[in-house]
């Protein structure tokens, strides 16, 4: 995973130079293969082994460094301006198969104009090799890279009955994912559905129909969480990603999505 040093510095004071950082990270188990300057920043290519999903984010790596250097770990400040009625009035979330998903949260953001992201965000994403798409998609990607928690944004107006139901798919139910591929679903697949049909392959990829489009629309963020790494959930997710071939270009964040999330870490 590519890590930006400037981004890291938001969470921990790093005084060592990048080459020292590369060596320090390697010696605590995060093998860093290269460090290269990118503009006014340095980018480290860190190999995160499968036993350390907590390090698949800048916050996670910062946590390691804070421990190593005995520095405080700084949490980002959250500025949340709430307005309008409660989210639960505008949309409902139901988890029909809690053995496969223990927690699912959503928020609604209204009156947003979909367009390109601000320069500072684009710069950060590009520095770590992520492709900017639009402000909404980039925001979800940014959070993923920063905190390690995958998000997805739905177009609220396209969620029928404004409902989200996390459930097993019915065999033969249709779903066309963001990459334009029609996915044959079985009972082994966990889907995010609205009041009528699946809108996303849970934890894997969003559907094409509810994708954020270039228009003014209120939309719903969703956060998928699991309070424990349940075997059944993991098996279902892995079975899903193996049987449904997803080109890595179509799902660059698939690696993060393989881990049922340990939300309590943040």
């Amino acid at each position: 995973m590519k890590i930006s040093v400037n981004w890291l510095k938001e969470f921990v004071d790093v005084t060592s130079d990048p080459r020292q950082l590369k060596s320090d990270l390697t010696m605590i188990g995060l093998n860093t293969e290269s460090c290269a300057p990118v503009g006014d920043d340095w980018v480290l290519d860190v190999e995160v082994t499968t036993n350390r999903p907590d390090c698949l984010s800048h916050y996670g790596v910062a946590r390691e460094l804070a421990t190593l250097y005995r520095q405080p770990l700084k949490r980002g400040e959250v500025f949340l301006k709430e307005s309008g009625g409660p989210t639960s009035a505008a949309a409902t979330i139901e988890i029909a198969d809690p053995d496969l998903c223990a927690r699912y949260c959503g928020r609604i953001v209204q009156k947003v104009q979909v367009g390109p992201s601000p320069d500072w965000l684009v710069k950060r994403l590009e520095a770590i090799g992520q492709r900017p798409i639009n402000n909404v998609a980039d925001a979800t990607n940014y959070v993923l890279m920063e905190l390690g928690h995958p998000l997805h944004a739905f177009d609220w107006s396209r969620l029928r009955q404004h409902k989200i139901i996390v459930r097993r798919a019915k065999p033969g139910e249709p779903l066309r994912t963001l990459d334009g591929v029609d996915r044959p679903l079985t009972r082994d697949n966990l889907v995010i559905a609205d009041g009528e049909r699946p809108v996303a392959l849970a934890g894997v990829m969003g559907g094409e129909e509810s994708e954020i489009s270039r228009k003014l629309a209120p939309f719903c963020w969703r956060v998928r969480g699991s309070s424990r790494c349940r075997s059944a959930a993991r098996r279902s997710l892995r079975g899903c990603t193996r049987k449904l071939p997803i080109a890595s270009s179509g799902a660059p964040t698939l690696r993060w999505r393989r881990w049922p999330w340990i939300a309590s870490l943040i």
Partner: protein
Amino acid sequence: MTIDEKVRKTLAELGATDAAGVEALFGEVRAAMEQERSSLVARGASSEAERDKLCKDLRDRWLARKNGLLTQIDEHWLKLGAKELKPIVGRQFNELRKASAGMETNELAQVVPLRKETSASMAQLSAQLESDVIRAERGDVSDLTLPGYRRPLGSLHPVTQMQREIEEIFLNLGFWIESGPEIESVYYNFDALNIPESHPSRDDWDTLYINSQTVLRTHTSPVQIRAMEKYGAPLYIIIPGKCYRHDNPDASHSPMFHQVEGLAIASDITFADLKGTLDFFAKKLFGEKVQTRFQPSFFPFTEPSGEVAISCIFCGGEGCRVCKESGWIEVMGCGMVHPQVLRNGGIDPEKFSGWAFGLGVDRFAMLKYDINDIQLFFQSDVRFLEQF
């Protein structure tokens, strides 16, 4: 019609009216040229004088300015050819001219061998030999000065040599050699090694599946479990063998490659023992001056896990292309055997501990012999193999 006759007729007379016809004609000429050349080489010459004469004659036949075959082609096919065919004929003629560079006298002379016996006298000799054999069978004396049969000597494959060097070091330490099946069950290849189906680490190996429960083993580690089941503790073994991965072959990857696994289990094995053994091993293999460095890593079947690097044997640690300027070359993985793996092997982790390592033999051979392409090992090219 012979070639000699053909080159003295025009294309029209020969019935070559299109590109295909022209190409066919030139093909015949090239074939004839090659055939005459190989005949001469096969025939040989019985003296330098004879050789020079034969070569010059052949050369003149084809390349003489006045009446050589190429000149005839130039006259009759190129100059007198139909206008629309001229570009094709011109191209073909140029190709022919290039190919005829091998017909120059000095070129020919280099490849025509000097034989004491030319084919003429060979016939005589073999008749003589036949009568000798008949005489020998009748009890008459045969020619005792004839040389005996000689067979070319082979040598061990460099990967085999490397494997034996490694085996030698561990045999001298008191280890013995175990092996296991190359076609392995998913249980032994993954589950018993603490790599469950639902864990992402399963994807760290690009596995070749035969069916859902059988694979071509991706590492020699399954034999750790088999050996533990067979012998229990204490255990000191190395396990050489072939492994398979669904890799696209390139300079550093081959779908089939060789590994050596090492395993030591006893009541008091520590990480210090692991470091000490591997440092000793590296020095034995690469020389006393080489240093080892351990860095943390992860394998599901060891805890803690490590990667071993040696000080670069090419630049001595200064930094070079091979070690990517770092001065160190990563060579192998290792670690303390995970307690669950011990349990899976039927050994009580409360009573015993152990270390394990795995190394790529091909990679070691590439380092030791300074070879930069793994595929060279598996192409069966004698010109490569006979160098070892």
